[in-house]
């Protein structure tokens, strides 16, 4: 489902020096496989997800999603792949304040080429336990409810891969387990592969496959 090969990414510092942030020799994630990348904050986990999602471009290397190397595609095609094959859960949910829960879920559908399926959006919100909160705006939802809307939104376009960036970081410890369970069970039902990054060992311990950032990313190992 996901293949990373020789992936390198660096940033140019204000002084003009190149600062390496990613050096991933190889990584493979199978169909519907669920893996977690564990590592401390500030070591390039979010940058890695951005590169996988095609939001940022790597300096070199291969990012293959469902057999397509997105580094070879122009931006518009990468956008298409992201809309149709990748779901993204942000650390801070990033729900749009002016839109209801249902509209936030349907927002992702707007940017994909498929039809805008309100029934699926309702179904997804029902599955995350929010069928009674469809018309509520994010400001009127609890933190846990907001994260559940974010999960539903990420799955709206039936993606093949779900990228989750510290999905429990903004949720209180009591609800962290619920969020992880929700993501894992929903993805299992939808046969979606998960690549989740976290700094929390208790979150990582729930996954069968755990990658450690220091082994995964050579730059992190050097740091």
């Amino acid at each position, binding site marked *: 489902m996901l293949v990373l090969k020789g992936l390198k990414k660096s940033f140019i510092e204000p002084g003009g020096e190149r600062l390496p942030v990613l050096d991933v020799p190889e990584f493979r994630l199978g169909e519907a496989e669920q893996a977690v990348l564990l590592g401390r904050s500030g070591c390039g986990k*979010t*940058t890695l997800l*951005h590169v996988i*999602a095609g*939001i*940022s471009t790597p300096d070199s290397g291969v990012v293959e999603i469902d057999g397509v190397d997105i580094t070879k595609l122009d*931006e*518009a095609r990468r*956008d*298409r792949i*992201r*809309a*149709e094959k*990748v779901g*993204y859960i*942000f650390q*801070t949910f*990033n729900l*749009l*304040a*002016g*839109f209801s829960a249902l*509209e936030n879920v*349907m*927002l*992702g*559908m*707007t*940017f*994909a080429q498929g039809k*805008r399926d309100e029934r699926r959006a309702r179904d997804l919100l029902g599955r995350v336990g929010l069928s009674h909160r469809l018309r509520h705006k994010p400001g009127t939802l609890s933190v846990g409810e907001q994260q559940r809307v974010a999960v539903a*939104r990420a799955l709206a*376009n039936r993606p093949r891969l779900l990228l989750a960036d510290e999905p429990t970081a903004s949720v209180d410890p009591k609800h962290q387990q619920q969020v992880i369970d929700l993501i894992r069970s929903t993805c299992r039902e939808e046969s979606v592969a998960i690549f989740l990054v976290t700094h929390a060992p208790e979150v990582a311990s729930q996954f069968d496959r755990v990658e450690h950032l220091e082994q995964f990313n050579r730059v992190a190992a050097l740091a």
Partner: protein
Amino acid sequence: MSLFKIAWRSIQQRGLASALTGLSMALGVALVVAVLVIHNVVADSFQRSAGLGYDLIVGAKGGKLQLVLNTVYHLSSPVENIPYTYLKDFTEGQYKEYVSKAIPYCLGDNYEGYRVVATVPNLFEDEKNAPGQRYGFAQGRNFKGDAYFEGVAGALAARRLRLKVGDSFRPSHGVLDDGQGHKHDAFTIVGILEPTGTPNDRALFINMEGFYLLDNHAKPVPGATEAKPTAVAKHDDHDDHDHDHDHELKPLPEGQRELTAILVRTSSPTAGMFLPNKINEGQVAQAVSPIREIRGLFDAIVEPIQWLLLGLTVLIVAVSGIGILVSIYNSMSERRREIAVMRALGARRTTVMAIVLLESVLLSLGGGAAGWLLGRGLIAALSPVIVAQTGVSIGFAPLMPAELLLIPGLVILAALVGYLPAMSAYRTDVARSLASAP
């Protein structure tokens, strides 16, 4: 969810700013619509009623435009007089072959500010006040030629002065109601004209024979006696003048009569070309084409002013457009993260750009639509004032092509003013914006 809905949600989110921006656009468009409609209707109505169905206005030599404004529009002050006998040149004399109708006008009196026109009953009998229209009476009938102190009232004048059939009124000398004019004998209203949409709606029409018998209306002629000795003798016996005196009166001798103007309908288009030259070659009077004079007035003065007004109002719309630009552009910094989220969900750069442009278009068209309604409402509200001031009826003005041009015009304006914030959205650095604090 459509891009329109996303753009609309964004407008809703900035409710107050959006409402104020839309209102600014609405006011600008309302002014454009008002100027356009009033210009069009007034120009059309002025020119349509310019001749009241007549080809020429004959009056004393002098200001041509003044003659038309005074005779047709009941504006300005009367010109000098011409001899009554000159009318015979049109009815039985040298110009007869060129003329199918000649109506004499005597002006110079008013009743409470409304012009009093002394004329002949024939004016209302078979003449059209404009193409396809005939004078009709809402109440009563036309005044009779042998009933010297009868008159009829224009629709607006009757309404404003609360005159009805059977009422009497006493014209004052002079065209302005300054309270200084001598009060004449009373005339009885025998008919109220139906509205014509012409300046005649705000005038009172009296029998010319009665007019001549009023004080100071007889031309001083050496050796001539007082115009209406019999009437005067009878009037001296009474304080009020509300009585029937027709049976005792004799018409004023022609030698003591004068006219302000003669409305002439020519017998043929060719006659219409020859007759003015013939009249103007003489020493007595001049003939002017009311339509040509009014068109000249519009071309020389009214039209440039209207264009200037239109230019100013378009400028106001442009300023309102800049308001949209400022409103959306200012919101871009706080919406950067939202745009980044949309991009992360798969929206293309062009898609977020389109959303911002749509926002600008919605604000512009929404404000424009409200402005159109406001403008039309404004015109409807001002219509009675315009009728009262000019006698020109606006009524329901049909949709003009220029108004339809507002739609593409506003879309283009919205695209222009939305371009800058749209480009800002287009250039949003997704990774950096997502990394920034929410």
